[in-house]
């Protein structure tokens, strides 16, 4: 953090009032105020004398501090100031600009514009939400129908088309909703430890098939990665990357190339790291004129090649806003017919290192690596050494066997055999069975591959491979992959297994959901887990049904939020207020499509215990139910 002297040096002589806020006990507090601000407040703290509403918008850690395009006006006495806000490392800087005259002249216009803009955002948000709810039903019912046996082929084809079309519709709606949320300042970043390897692999899983489908050459350039865990909002960061890549793929004709560059480097003397991605394509490019409008919502370049391509014109605007929100920068260069290159740089705090247990378990173990790509092999060796392991690198099948022979004559032994999927001198599918036979069934053989494991698993597990670690290789993936074969991991897993036996049999749930189709989906999914379910159609009925039953009759209440008569939040509050034996303890889980931080916060404030996003995801629902209904509970 910047110290007082540094702040004084920079802002002390500035004529405009400036205050700096720093994180403090879950909020932001003023840590500096320059002489101009002192003069304005007569020695008092500027933060203390401003209206509460304005103060909260500056100090709330979860509020969108960085400008969202809307001005913030601060009335002090008979003057009105515009608050210019920006981030400086982890400080929030506010600079006050006296706009009294201008404000008075345009007050009604400004207010009208602000109201209109808010109304637009609110309308879009509500509309998107209202359309998303039935879309969720369509998607859910289609999935259930697809799971049925004996569906006629023609019907199956129709269902698959509905699935594809509704998926596309949902993604468009999500974009509109996102944009309106961003514009209305409702997006709050959920920063947590984000695994860069997971992030990249999730991106590649989406993007590679798209590139293949478009007959494009996809190249990944992985540069220095000084830190594999970041304190970042994974969902939003992935969204930025995917938007750029999807755009590149969309606007690059077959045979072209899309290149993703990723590097994470240390920012000198700040404790932060810079996450940089470069997305370069050889596509249709943009005109000089359009480059300046590319980040404006709903803007699309008017040319025949673009008009044929589906899109809302929101992707780049969302991307730019998200990058701004994360305190980063986005730049681009492009030439018509030659392609486009986007560069994004975002500073993040490094995340936690979870590899201590892995390092302890793997320390000193011998491992054999077979890779005939010298550069990649050396990189893997270097990672293995960083984990405390003793790797041997074989670059041919004969050399790999030599290492195994040498080890067989020594008192040591190999912990595992790592091999890439393709080498030049032997078919790995013929090589692995021999190694498996020789080393026995308990010896870990692990495949490193750029391919999707689900596509190659059948073949390689039969050839002798036990597990798979995706390429490009990350320390976390390699460490956790290898750790899973250690005694320490097995012991830990055994302990966890003792606590994690799934059994919902005999458990009873009260489900409050007004939408009939959504109710049907929930009942079907819950029924699959052997739960007994009672249903009601609004919050009022939920409270009444709960009140009429004996204590401990229900094990859990699933509550929709937006319902007629009484909404879910009010119903939860009402239940908690009841003077029943279990009314304070019975788990109440919210179900809503509004998966935003503030929605979750509101649910919790109303007395709910957890939150499940709609459309219902089976995995998420079961794991949430497991938390409350599992045997260990």
């Amino acid at each position, binding site marked *: 953090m910047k110290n007082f002297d540094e702040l004084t040096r920079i802002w002390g002589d500035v004529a405009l009032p400036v205050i700096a806020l720093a994180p403090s006990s879950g909020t932001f507090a003023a840590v500096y105020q320059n002489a101009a601000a002192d003069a304005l407040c007569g020695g008092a703290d500027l933060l203390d004398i401003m209206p509460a509403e304005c103060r909260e918008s500056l100090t709330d850690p979860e509020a969108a501090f960085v400008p969202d395009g809307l001005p913030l006006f601060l009335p002090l006495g008979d003057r009105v100031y515009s608050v210019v806000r920006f981030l400086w490392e982890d400080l929030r800087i506010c600079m006050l600009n006296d706009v009294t005259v201008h404000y008075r002249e345009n007050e009604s216009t400004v207010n009208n514009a602000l109201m209109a803009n808010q109304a637009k955002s609110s309308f879009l948000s509500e509309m998107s939400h209202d359309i998303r709810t039935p879309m969720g039903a369509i998607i859910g019912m289609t999935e259930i129908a697809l799971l049925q046996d004996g569906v006629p082929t023609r019907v199956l084809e129709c269902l698959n088309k509905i699935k594809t079309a509704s998926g596309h519709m949902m993604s468009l709606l999500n974009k509109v909703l996102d944009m309106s949320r961003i514009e209305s300042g409702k997006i709050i970043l959920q920063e947590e430890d984000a695994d860069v390897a997971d992030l990249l692999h999730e991106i590649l899983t989406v993007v590679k098939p798209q590139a293949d489908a478009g007959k494009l050459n996809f190249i990944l350039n992985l540069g220095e990665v000084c830190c594999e865990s970041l304190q970042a909002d994974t969902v939003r960061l992935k969204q930025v990357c995917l938007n750029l890549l999807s755009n590149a793929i969309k606007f690059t004709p077959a045979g072209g190339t899309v290149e993703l560059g990723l590097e994470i480097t240390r920012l000198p003397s700040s404790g932060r790291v810079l996450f940089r991605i470069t997305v370069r394509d050889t596509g249709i490019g943009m005109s000089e004129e359009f480059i300046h409008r590319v980040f404006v919502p709903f803007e699309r370049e008017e040319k025949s090649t673009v008009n044929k391509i589906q899109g809302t014109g929101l992707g780049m605007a969302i991307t730019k806003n998200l990058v701004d929100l994360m305190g980063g920068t986005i730049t681009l260069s492009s030439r018509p017919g030659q392609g486009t290159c986007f560069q994004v740089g975002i500073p993040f705090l490094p995340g936690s290192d979870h590899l201590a247990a892995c390092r302890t378990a793997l320390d000193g173990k011998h491992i054999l690596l077979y890779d005939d790509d010298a550069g990649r092999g050396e990189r893997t060796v270097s990672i293995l050494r960083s984990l405390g392991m003793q790797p041997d690198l074989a670059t041919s*099948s*004969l050399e790999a066997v030599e290492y*195994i022979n040498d080890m*067989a*004559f020594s008192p040591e032994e190999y912990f595992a055999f790592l091999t890439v999927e393709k080498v030049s*001198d032997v078919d790995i599918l*013929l090589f692995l069975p021999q190694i498996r036979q020789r080393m026995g069934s308990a010896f870990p053989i692990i495949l490193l591959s750029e391919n999707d494991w689900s596509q190659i698993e059948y073949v390689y597990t039969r050839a002798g491979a036990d597990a798979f670690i995706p390429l490009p290789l990350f320390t976390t993936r390699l460490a956790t992959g290898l750790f899973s074969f250690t005694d320490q991991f097995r012991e830990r897993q055994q302990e966890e297994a003792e606590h994690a036996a799934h059994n919902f049999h005999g458990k009873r749930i009260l489900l409050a959901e007004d939408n009939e189709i959504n109710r049907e989906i929930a009942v079907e999914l819950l029924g699959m887990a052997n739960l007994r379910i009672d249903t009601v159609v609004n919050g009022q009925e939920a409270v009444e049904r709960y009140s009429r039953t004996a204590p401990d009759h229900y094990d859990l209440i699933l509550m929709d939020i937006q319902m007629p008569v009484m909404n879910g939040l009010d119903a939860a509050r009402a239940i908690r207020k009841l003077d029943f034996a279990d009314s304070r303890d019975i788990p109440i889980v919210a179900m809503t499509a509004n998966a935003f931080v503030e929605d979750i916060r509101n649910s919790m404030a109303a007395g709910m215990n957890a939150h499940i996003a709609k459309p219902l995801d089976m995995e998420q629902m079961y794991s949430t139910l497991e938390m409350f209904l599992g045997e260990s509970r």
Partner: protein
Amino acid sequence: MKDYQIRYIENLNRILELADVSRESLSDTEAFFSSRYEKRRTISSLITENTALLRQELFPALDDVITLPPEEILSLREFASALRSGGRELDIVLTYTIHNALLVYARHQKKRDLLIEELYWTGMSLYSLHSLIRPVAPNRYTWRMQNLFGEAASYIKEYDSIEDPGTRGYIHRSMANMALSYMTGTREMGERKMRIIRNSLRILTDPVYHRKTPSLPWDTYIYKSHQERTTSLAFLRSSADSQMIREVMESAEYVWQKQLEISRATGAAPSTRWHVVYELAHYHCGILTLEQLLTRMERLFLERRTDDYSMEGIYCNIYLPAVYAEYLSYNEQYKQSKKEVLGYMYRMMLAYVRTVPASCMGISMIRNIMMTFINFIEYPDGLKQRDLLLRLVVCRNPETFVYFHMTACLSKLLLTETLRVRPELLLGVLDLDTEEALLAQENRLAEFAYEAGMFHDIGQLNFTQMTTQTGRSWMSEEKELYKYHPQIGESILRRCESTRLCADAAAGHHRYYDGKGGYPETYDRNSRPNQPVTDIVALCSYFCRLLDNTLDYKKPHLSLEEALAQLRSESGARLHPGFVRIFCDMEPTLRHYLETARLTAYRLAVSYLYDETPSPI
């Protein structure tokens, strides 16, 4: 052994007799021709019988090998041992198949002694397969045999708990055989090989082990390890370190002294091979000059017996000229002054090869013949490699010569016709970039097409035993092995001036035009400027195989019309569409040619066998 096993081996021996060209009478071409086909029909019925025997008796047993009763396992071991037949290697792929199955059995049943024994024998079977494609080393067998020998050898850790002396012997033998994987002459390979032999010898000479298992033939093991180490002489040329030189010298001395001992005890002359090795070692450490070395080798060559088909005979008659040529090539002066001597050696070698009985035409013989090509020295006015190659083909397998000759003639016809109707298809061949230039060089191009057709399949030489003596249907292992023949052919042809131009045809004649099929997969047609000639040869070679009836030369396998229809059906995929069209339009010419083609080729083959002077080229 079981009855079917005995019968199988009898049939194999019978096939060896029937396949023996060296015993054919050449006085009457027609009679020779008819006799060959008659024998091929008999061979074919024996192959059918043997295939059925394996299908009905052996394969069901191997399918269920894990649960076989002990007496069945014993019979399999006996069968495999009989197939090895004291080093004759009657059927190496089948031997490997049985040992591999026994290995699975031993591993599954946790029979440690049998496991160690079968690791050794499966490794040895792989070594035989490896030797077949030794010019392409390391190959698909190298790491596998290293893995098996390594695993067997690693039981040295459990030595004291193993009671059977034979099993202990397999551990020592496996440890020594780990050196067999290193055959190429690079320094790195040499160092690895020396390290393995050093480790093995350290244990073999350790009195503690001698005391633990006194019944093992320790002297033989040590002697064989020294023998193997002397083969590292080849590595000394790639700047070996002083330790390596000392060790190789030490082994050469050890082996030679042992030879002298045996000689004194038996009254027989010491082995020429080890005598030569001893002299070579002296040359490498500066005791002998090159001239002295060459003179000693000449003297040993003159002392050889030309009717000795043992390993010693093969060495003296075939390998020694190759070694002589290798050392001659070090010095330009000697290369010129000894030209006549080397020519004489080559001629004598050829005469010897012609007389080798089929039963002796095993892997060792072929390996030694191939060595001749690896070190072949060609003189402008001396014996050319192409002549030597053809004489070898013709004298060991006249039917193959017939196929080569027909492919050559058809390639020449097709090229000439292409020049007439679509010369643009040949642009770039022999660096001729215009149609005028191509037409001006018609004779040269026609000769090129003929030679490329004649030599395109020369890699088959390496598989002579497999193609002429396999007494059953081929297994997939044989098919895979055979796929190496383009690479081996290319490596032979590229070495000498007289055949270099044909190397591309050898490399690419089995790779499909569209790049989606055939072999080798690594073949890149775009990097071969003479690819049109390779396309022509590939087409003509395929056409000849479609016609070829191995049992009756008078009845082709497919009629001309059927063969042409087949070519059309593969146009654009396997074969170049332009050449297919031209070839099919040549139907009247082809019909006329085919009327006498086979018999003419046979006559040529026989005349060639009679007279060494005229060349079919």
